[in-house]
């Protein structure tokens, strides 16, 4: 009976795209419960929470807090009502201390004018103690890890006496240990009577942490369930609307000649002796998926940069068939050559947010649409429309791509790059941040390509992805390749077994 929050028939349509993000959505939140708000990308979870936090206006519906109808115009009004939100991307001043960040906007001052650092520090330290957090009030935020920065964000909310805490995909960038301690913190908050809404699409976390789960799909609330009464496959089924299928791989048919090869590629940083990439040798053959895995900061990022031609080689060479793409002190010409490439940064490198879907679609094959004089608008429209249909992208050709959800943007990029494949594609963090349905779609596409003889270079820090897709696997640690697994070994590998290699504590199969 005693709901702290009720949202009734909330409807929101984005004017620019005429897209209905929320359609008559109802949500109830009890005092002291952890509620997971689950759904695929673009299901409308974040929109609903932004409405609650006063970040975006809604068209219809009612929001009731503690039994009273409220009109939440902006985040300040939301905070006054006891609603706080921690965004996926933190909003912190790196140069300030933890305490300064926490109190910013509500500082304790002397004579109403001067910042009283002693009192502020004390107050924040007290708050940290109260909640058993691991950070220190006087630490500079710039020096904190991602998990610790998240603690600062949560503290910011607690300092403002928040009773409803919204967390937007809080575990997306955390390590396993950090997730464990976050969950412990959330449970403590729950005991103190704080109600928590977690936006997430990680199903095992829903099971682990939440009391109830509400699942959204395509802008509508499908249902709310007691978590203990539902199992993981049920949740994923409801989220996606259909059952998962397993990816079938045909027998490996590797080409005889290497398509892409990197020979003793080395990247040095100025004034440092430890190279970012140390003597990397890779040969990619047709018809195989070659996985490259590593914990972030261990060289995969640099590997992507040199393949993109954004970073010059300090030593070594890259060849595509017999063509030399780059050698010592040069940037690779992969991009001028137009080799299919799905970059990890899909928002700023892989797409142009201010351009339309069709402009993005033709960007890397533009020569096909511009005869010597003029433009083939009809051909562009047809090309884009057919790709939109083939890849089930929720968009129209003339829509700005920045108005699409992350999953749909990634599909645009994939469609564009796959369309121009000859015998090779390079993919980096190809399913990062995608929901289950989109990720499965992408994985199927990649296997399909490999079955038709395309060589796929797959850079990924997602071990599930790497293990289920790769035919061969290279493990990167501290800029070097420390392990090589072949197609007979991979089916028997587990994530746990990769641990020592990822941490650089063991090596394997490097004599090839």
């Amino acid at each position: 009976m005693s709901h702290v929050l009720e949202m009734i028939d909330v409807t929101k349509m984005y004017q620019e795209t005429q897209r209905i993000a929320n359609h008559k959505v109802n949500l109830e939140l009890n005092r002291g419960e952890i509620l997971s708000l689950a759904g695929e990308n673009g299901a409308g979870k974040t929109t609903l929470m932004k409405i609650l936090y006063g970040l975006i206006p809604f068209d219809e519906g009612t929001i009731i807090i503690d039994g009273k109808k409220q009109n939440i115009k902006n985040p300040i009004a939301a905070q006054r009502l006891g609603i706080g939100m921690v965004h996926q991307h933190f909003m912190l001043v790196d140069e300030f201390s933890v305490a300064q960040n926490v109190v910013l906007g509500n500082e304790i001052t002397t004579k109403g004018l001067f910042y009283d650092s002693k009192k502020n520090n004390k107050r924040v330290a007290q708050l940290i103690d109260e909640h058993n957090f691991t950070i220190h009030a006087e630490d500079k935020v710039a020096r904190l890890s991602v998990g610790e920065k998240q603690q600062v964000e949560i503290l910011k909310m607690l300092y403002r006496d928040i009773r409803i805490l919204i967390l937007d995909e809080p575990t997306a960038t955390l390590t396993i240990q950090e997730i464990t301690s976050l969950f412990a913190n959330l449970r403590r908050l729950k005991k103190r009577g704080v109600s928590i809404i977690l936006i997430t699409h990680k199903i095992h976390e829903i099971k682990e942490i939440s009391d109830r789960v509400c699942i959204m799909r395509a802008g509508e609330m499908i249902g709310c369930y007691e978590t203990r009464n539902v199992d993981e496959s049920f949740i994923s089924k409801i989220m996606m609307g259909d059952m998962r299928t397993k990816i079938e791989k045909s027998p490996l048919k590797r080409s005889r000649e290497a398509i892409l090869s990197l020979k003793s590629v080395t990247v040095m940083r100025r004034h440092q002796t430890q190279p970012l990439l140390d003597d990397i040798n890779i040969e990619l053959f047709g018809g195989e998926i070659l996985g490259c895995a590593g914990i972030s900061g261990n060289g995969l990022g640099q590997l992507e940069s040199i393949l993109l031609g954004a970073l010059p080689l300090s030593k070594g060479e890259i060849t595509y068939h017999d063509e030399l793409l780059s050698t010592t002190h040069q940037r690779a010409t992969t991009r001028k050559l137009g080799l299919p490439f799905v970059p990890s940064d899909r928002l700023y490198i892989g797409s142009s947010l201010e351009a339309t879907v069709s402009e993005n679609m033709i960007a890397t094959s533009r020569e096909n649409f511009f005869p010597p004089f003029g433009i083939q608008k009809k051909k562009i429209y047809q090309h884009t429309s057919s790709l939109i249909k083939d890849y089930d992208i929720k968009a129209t050709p003339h829509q700005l791509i920045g108005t699409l959800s992350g999953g749909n943007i990634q599909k645009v990029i994939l469609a564009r790059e796959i369309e121009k494949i000859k015998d090779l594609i390079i993919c980096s963090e190809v399913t990062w941040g995608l929901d289950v349905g989109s990720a499965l779609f992408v994985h199927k596409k990649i296997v399909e390509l490999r079955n038709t003889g395309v060589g796929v270079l797959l850079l990924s820090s997602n071990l599930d992805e790497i293990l289920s897709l790769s035919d061969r696997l290279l493990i990167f640690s501290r800029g070097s390749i420390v392990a090589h697994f072949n197609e007979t070994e991979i089916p028997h590998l587990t994530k746990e077994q990769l641990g020592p290699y990822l941490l650089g504590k063991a090596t394997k199969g490097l004599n090839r």
Partner: protein
Amino acid sequence: MKRKIERFNPFVYMIRSLFGMFIIVMISLISLILLSYFLSATPKRTIYYFFSGPFSSLYAFGNMINDAIPLIIGGLGVSLAFRAGNMNIGGEGQVYTGALIATIVAIALEGFGEIGVVLSIFLAMAASGLLAGFSGYLKAKWNTNELITTFLVSNAMILIVNYLISGPFVDPLTNLISTRQIPEVAELTLVLPPSNLNTSLVTALAAVFIIHALMYRSKTGFELRMYGNNNKFAMYAGISHTYYQIMPMFVSGAMYGLSGAMAIFGTYHAVIKEFSVGLGWNALAVALIARYRPFAVIPAALFFAYIDSGAHSAMLYSDVTFELSSIVQATVFFLVSSVTLQRLGLGKRRV
């Protein structure tokens, strides 16, 4: 599941995107009306002549359109450069330089007839193009800020041209600081006598079509806009950075040069000291108002010319000074830089 999906309607979008501009123009015109009550003893008369003056005679009307021509040409160049993410604010010096080169080449090549005239226009465009292209080159080479370099180069050129027309190229037969008159073959035909409106109008309109085609109907234009939108994405798509840092700057300079040449051949017939003051800045403002769309440059330039012309007539028939037009133009210039105002009709951006 039922879901209402309405199609994106470009026409409605256009109307809505114009709403902000309409408000900006209204604010500036209302400020003009209010100012008249402060500045003028006969405010109603001032306002009447301000608004109706440009249409009171063929002479005034023709001159108004004629004034818009160099603004159209210059504004097109700025638009193109901006679409590639480059800002050229050296218009003042580039117009002036183009005018001088066109004049002295036309005089020197008098014996070659029309060929000499055409050549003088191309050389004027090349000279001004190189001035702006130089800034683009510096940006590509050393990542200097083109906003600063175009401005500095332009200021230096104004002084150099001033020296040249008051020294080496001065016409000793007049009392003005001015070059000699261009040969008769270079003078453009008047189309609406007794006003100054001349055939350079055709050049301006042709330029609109050409720049539009270049920007929206060619591969170069596509690459240029992609580069301007997001240069990392452009790099990823294999689009040359160097080329799109230099080429759009060169073209924008060349357009300024062309507008200088057209002003001389059509209207002034000689480079008179500081004849083009403000033209570069106004063309920039015109491009801003048009939001860098070639066809929108025409009404934007006409609006600026209308304000000038209205102020002229109010000055003649009432008791205000010509600065009234500068105030209105400044108000527009100031307001137009507000993204919020411009997007007024489009609703809030998605966060």
